[in-house]
């Protein structure tokens, strides 16, 4: 069974704080993704990575950065959190056409 885990289910941060969201997958997948989900907007891709140390911008990368130092781990970084980054963040991994998602992190920025 594929397992994608995310470091926190719920997180509350203050405006201006640096925020790290961690994602780990245990199936040796090459590709990993970070999305945010907002009502009425569906899942929007922030960044993805197809290999260690490789990253590609998705549709909404502004205000975010990522790090992939190991194949199983993909981190999303909010350098200076803002209230408009309050959202559900979903990590996923895939090795072919099918993506497997983590449980999500509900981030609230106050």
């Amino acid at each position, binding site marked *: 069974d594929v397992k*994608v885990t995310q470091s926190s*289910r719920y997180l509350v941060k203050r405006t201006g704080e640096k925020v790290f969201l961690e994602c780990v997958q245990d199936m040796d997948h090459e*590709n990993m*993704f970070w*999305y945010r989900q907002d009502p*009425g*907007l*569906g*899942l*929007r*891709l922030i960044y*993805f990575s*197809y290999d260690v140390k490789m990253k*590609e911008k*998705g549709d909404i990368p502004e205000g975010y950065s990522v790090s992939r130092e190991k194949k199983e781990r993909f981190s999303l970084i909010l350098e200076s959190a803002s209230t408009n980054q309050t959202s559900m963040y*979903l990590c*996923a991994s*895939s090795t*072919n*056409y*099918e*993506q*497997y*998602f*983590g*449980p*999500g992190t*509900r981030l609230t920025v106050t």
Partner: protein
Amino acid sequence: DQQVKQNSPSLSVQEGRISILNCDYTNSMFDYFLWYKKYPAEGPTFLISISSIKDKNEDGRFTVFLNKSAKHLSLHIVPSQPGDSAVYFCAACTHTGNQFYFGTGTSLTVIP
């Protein structure tokens, strides 16, 4: 610009009846299409997929139909059960399989 669209934000169906969820796309290079189901406070889970070389794929109560000329796909659930109540996302990707495009989701409510 949204390349995958789900124009119905919500759908209510009686238990035992058929649920039909629709999805349209604009990119003719999409090679593979997927449906995901999402419960509140959980990540999406893969439900069923279809390759662009097929027009139908069936898995138990779930069937996906693909009409390439209309750039349209649909998910049929029959018979619908209360446990099917969730948000359903349609997704598509090209042959590289490393970038997925999601629709905005349809919230399905199955009424007992």
